[in-house]
């Protein structure tokens, strides 16, 4: 095993070497040392891609840790080298560096505060080879599956299955609505999830056809069951959908036809707004025609506040990545807290996604969040089981 330690403090390099030798016999490991980033870069270039681990300090004169990270990201042959970042910097700086490295798609084992426990680095490194194999297998399965799926045919054969996840009023614990989540059903592959089929739908230019089918099927499901009429029906829509005039016409028509159903369109945040004026025009038309718009995945995109300013949303949904660990991640807690406060001031309903535990439910209630959604209440439920689930939930509540 070849390990490179880049740290400007000789004592810390010596300590790490001694720590590594507690776990790996000297014969089994070659340790290279660099006392600054520039020297580290020279060594990486000299050893080439034969390094099994780079332990990298951040704050150094003559080439800091970020310079080394940028160099590794610039050469495809180096991107797979496992990196452990070590630093005495504060927690928020470490989190920032973590997100930079993750964004650069480097092989990051972790960002560790000094003093580090070398075992914390070596254990994931040794496990990572197994994980990499598993991830590779998963990727191959997804690719194979995607190659074998004929999305157009599946849609034509009405193999679209809709599931519904409940949204719960945090004060009363009553069900207030459901979000529609789609699956495709294929005889050989079984259930196919959106992460696999949506890129194919997109590639084949079937977006508006697909959205139309989802809307049509969900409204039919609701109109067939009088009990469901009491609940709002939330359907995801992309900015791309909003540029299709025929689809907007269709939604407005549906709104008129199914007047009794409270339809909410959740505009996903991660998609780029294409042709802003056209999108705003469509949103205005939908709102005028009594269709509520919700801002989905709030906080995930840089344009969040722009959109909040420009569009009169009826609700915002805080992205689950902030909610699901807010009881242990203080930064996420602060983001959720301030989003709820902002929503309250703007008189916009706020929905927290990714609620998985009672502890998080309690924190959200205390912060004044209106609505919660997540596995604590239920995973997405197939339409045919919805009435039974509602009855069971109401009994237990």
């Amino acid at each position, binding site marked *: 095993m070849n390990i490179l330690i880049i740290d400007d*403090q*000789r*004592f*810390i390099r*010596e*300590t790490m070497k001694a720590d590594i030798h*507690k776990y790996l016999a000297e014969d089994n490991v070659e340790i290279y040392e660099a006392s600054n980033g520039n020297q580290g870069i020279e060594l990486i270039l000299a050893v080439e891609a034969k390094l099994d681990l780079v332990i990298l300090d951040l704050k150094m004169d003559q080439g800091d840790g970020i310079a080394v990270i940028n160099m590794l990201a610039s050469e495809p042959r180096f991107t797979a080298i496992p990196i452990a970042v070590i630093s005495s910097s504060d927690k928020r700086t470490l989190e920032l560096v973590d997100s930079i490295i993750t964004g650069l798609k480097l092989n990051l084992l972790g960002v560790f505060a000094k*003093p580090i426990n070398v075992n914390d680095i070596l254990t994931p490194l040794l496990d990572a080879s197994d994980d990499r194999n598993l991830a590779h297998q998963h990727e191959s399965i997804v690719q194979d599956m995607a190659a074998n799926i004929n999305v157009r045919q599946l849609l034509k054969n009405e193999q679209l299955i809709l599931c519904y996840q409940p949204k719960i009023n945090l004060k009363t614990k009553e069900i207030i609505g459901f979000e529609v989540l789609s699956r495709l059903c294929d005889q050989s592959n079984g259930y196919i999830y959106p992460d696999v089929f949506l890129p194919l739908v997109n590639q084949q230019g079937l977006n508006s056809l697909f959205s139309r089918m989802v809307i049509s099927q969900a409204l039919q499901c609701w109109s067939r069951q009088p009990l469901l009429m009491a609940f709002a029906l939330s359907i995801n829509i992309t900015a791309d959908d909003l540029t299709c005039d025929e689809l907007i016409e269709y939604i407005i028509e549906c709104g008129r036809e199914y007047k009794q159903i409270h339809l909410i369109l959740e505009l996903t945040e991660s998609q780029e707004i294409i042709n802003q004026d056209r999108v705003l025009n469509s949103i205005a038309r939908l709102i005028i025609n009594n269709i509520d718009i919700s801002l989905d995945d709030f906080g995930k995109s840089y344009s969040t506040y722009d959109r909040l300013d420009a569009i009169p949303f009826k609700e915002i949904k805080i992205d689950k990545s902030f909610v699901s660990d807010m009881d242990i991640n203080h930064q996420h807690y602060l983001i959720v807290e301030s989003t709820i406060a902002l929503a309250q001031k703007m008189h916009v309903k706020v929905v927290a996604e990714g609620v998985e535990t009672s502890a998080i439910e309690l924190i959200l209630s205390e912060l004044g969040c209106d609505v919660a959604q997540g596995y604590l209440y239920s995973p997405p439920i197939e339409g045919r089981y919805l009435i039974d689930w509602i009855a069971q939930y109401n009994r237990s509540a």
Partner: protein
Amino acid sequence: MNANTELLKALSVFFEQYSQEQQSRLRLTLIAELQRMRLELEQYESSDSIEGLKHQFTGIARYLELKDMLSVMDVCEREQFEYQLCSLLKAVMDYANEL
């Protein structure tokens, strides 16, 4: 227990994790590093920023788990920092001499 005794105790906890050969190398390295830092500090003008040296010292103090030294590091001025640096250097040399 005076400050030097506490430092000696912390040093003994740290070094005794390692083999004799490793201990010897780590002791020599630590003394060399602290001496270099003291020399650098002596060469600094009174107006020079000592933040870089303080950052390096904090790194070492964290490895040695010197909580008292770490607690003053954010706020200490040059004189206090010099005192902390010299105290640690003296303690490491005393520890080495006791062996």
